[in-house]
């Protein structure tokens, strides 16, 4: 039913006007007309097939339709003044893609590998649709690039300014975030281990750590800039401070996660504290430690970028964003945001992979 509507949208686009300005209609563009026809036919075929197999022609039709609309937007007569016919096509593409996602989500493949592929494909398709709509909306309505640039514009800017982006990446991410993250998490872990050894210290540090990790600690950024200068040490210091307390609290909770039975077992083996720590407490605390590492991955990036607002050498993601936003070069700002997002996701992904490799025994992975 939905696919029929989508196909109807495609066919309607062939007769309806594409633009409120003077622009050639679809029948005057043979290649695009062929693409539209193909899209409409494929969607119609998808409507005729029941079940999962309809995804294949449906997806092909969606691709054809999307290509056509993007090609149409290159015509200055269409971009910025798109009319009913164009939007009918966009809606058809959207509807078709949404139906594909729904079909895919209701699939329950038997093999583990295909299930994994599916669980990757669905969000990817969903994201692609969102980016497609963003692109088409911005260019179709002619939104000013100062307010919101099209993703293609940001991507083009990204590709052109790779050296600058590389410098910023090294400055903010490698120097600021990674070093600070290592120091903060390492210190949190060590202090937690010491605090667990001496119960008095632990009882005092746990509530204090809880209190401090709830404070807006990024606010110390101006102080750190004053103490450690404009360059990366001040950023690393902010990141270290911000990541320290979540790590401390989580590790403390994790170290006390080992059960009484296991502890008694270690005692009956005559294990000393170091052995117990290595064989029992730390492995039992790993899920908690990784939880903190994941929380800290986001906090660290925020901390570093905030610290850059208070003064930097002339590079770094936060610096570039604030200067380029001041110059109204919003496409460059979005390129930097994309850089930070990609770096952050890669970082988070690495932590998650390490977690999977080391805490494979935890119930949440044994499905």
């Amino acid at each position: 039913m939905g696919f029929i509507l989508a196909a109807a949208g495609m066919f309607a686009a062939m007769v309806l006007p594409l633009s409120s300005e003077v622009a050639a209609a679809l029948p005057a563009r043979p290649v695009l007309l062929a693409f539209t026809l193909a899209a409409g036919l494929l969607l119609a075929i998808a409507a005729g097939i029941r079940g999962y197999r309809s995804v294949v022609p449906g997806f092909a039709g969606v691709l054809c339709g999307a290509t056509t609309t993007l090609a149409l937007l290159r015509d200055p007569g269409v971009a910025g003044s798109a009319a009913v016919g164009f939007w009918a096509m966009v809606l058809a593409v959207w509807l078709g893609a949404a139906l594909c996602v729904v079909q895919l989500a209701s699939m329950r493949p038997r093999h583990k590998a295909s299930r994994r592929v599916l669980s990757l494909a669905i969000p990817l398709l969903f994201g692609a649709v969102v980016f497609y709509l963003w692109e088409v909306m911005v260019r179709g309505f002619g939104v000013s690039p100062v307010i919101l640039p099209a993703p293609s514009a940001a991507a083009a800017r990204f590709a052109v300014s790779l050296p600058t982006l590389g410098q910023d990446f090294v400055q903010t991410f490698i120097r600021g975030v990674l070093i600070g993250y290592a120091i903060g998490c390492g210190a949190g872990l060590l202090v937690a281990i010491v605090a667990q050894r001496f119960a008095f210290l632990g009882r005092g540090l746990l509530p204090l750590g809880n209190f401090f990790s709830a404070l807006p600690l990024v606010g110390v950024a101006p102080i750190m800039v004053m103490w450690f200068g404009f360059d990366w040490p001040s950023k690393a210091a902010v990141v270290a401070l911000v990541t320290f307390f979540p790590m401390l609290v989580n590790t403390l909770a994790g170290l006390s996660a080992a059960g009484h039975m296991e502890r008694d077992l270690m005692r009956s083996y005559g294990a000393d504290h170091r052995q117990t720590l290595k064989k029992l407490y730390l492995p039992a605390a790993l899920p908690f430690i990784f939880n903190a590492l994941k929380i800290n991955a986001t906090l660290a990036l925020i901390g570093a970028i905030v610290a850059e607002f208070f003064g930097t050498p002339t590079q770094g993601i936060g610096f570039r964003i604030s200067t380029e936003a001041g110059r109204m070069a919003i496409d460059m700002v979005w390129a930097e945001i994309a850089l930070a997002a990609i770096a952050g996701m890669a970082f988070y992904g690495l932590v998650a992979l390490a977690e999977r490799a080391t805490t494979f025994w935890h119930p949440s992975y044994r499905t």
Partner: protein
Amino acid sequence: MTSSSLSLPVSRAGTLRRHRLAERYAPIVTIVLALIAIWYIGAVLMNLALVRDGFEREETPYTVSDLIEGTMSAERPLLPAPHQVITAFVDSVFGYAPTAPRSLIYHSTVTLSATLLGFVLGALLGIALALMIVHSRVLEKSLLPWIICSQMVPILALAPIFVVALGAMGLQGLLPKSIISAYLSFFPITIGMVKGFTAPDPMQLDLMRTWSATPRQVLSKLRWPSAVPYLFASLKVAVTISLIGAIVAELPTGAEAGIGARLLAGSYYGQTIQIWSALLAAAILASGLIALVDLTERGVARQMGTRS
């Protein structure tokens, strides 16, 4: 079997309670005192060079006690002593009318209003997203990964753009800050509520089915009550995050009022004491907000008949 459980004192409840109080608070007090001592020592050490330079520039003779006294009362110290911060804080809270631009109360209310608006927006968005995700398998598969990814986008980097974009649409002031704080705070609520809504076990859901309950009834009678503890746990996280969001959003947007603006101004003019007292205000605000959520949680728990 631990030995302490065998030799538990049976009577003397009074001394036991006093012991418990002591046991609970003695470590905290000790560590806080130690931190304050370290702070004082740090203040002396870090400001020493500054003060000595000052004396030598004026070529006045000085003693060690002069030096130490100087480090405690420097006007722009590298690290102000705790009592300086407290004095400045009390002065800027009670010393001026609450509407004066030098009053911390004024700045705190500006930040607090952005925080609360952002928190409410974030909570509503977070719960709505969780409801959608719980009820739709498609959304769970397609939207949830992107929600996790969304937190990897350094949203505060978007703050200047938000201000530009929303300003072009005629929106100014509170809303850009609140949107940033909502964007930061919806995430823990969504994750927590998805967990909470799926907390009832299959037996209970089956029971609802045998009573032929509609999805809405399942939601109101089973899923909501079971999600309440998760809701408050995530609200506590979210409220501090939305405060961070509001403060951070004031930095790049060139706000003139608010705790973030106070921090920025302090760092421009080297007013360290001002920075520290703004931080103290932020800390008090954060603990107050958490206490408020905690109080609400207790009230709701009592209403729902939970025994604490």
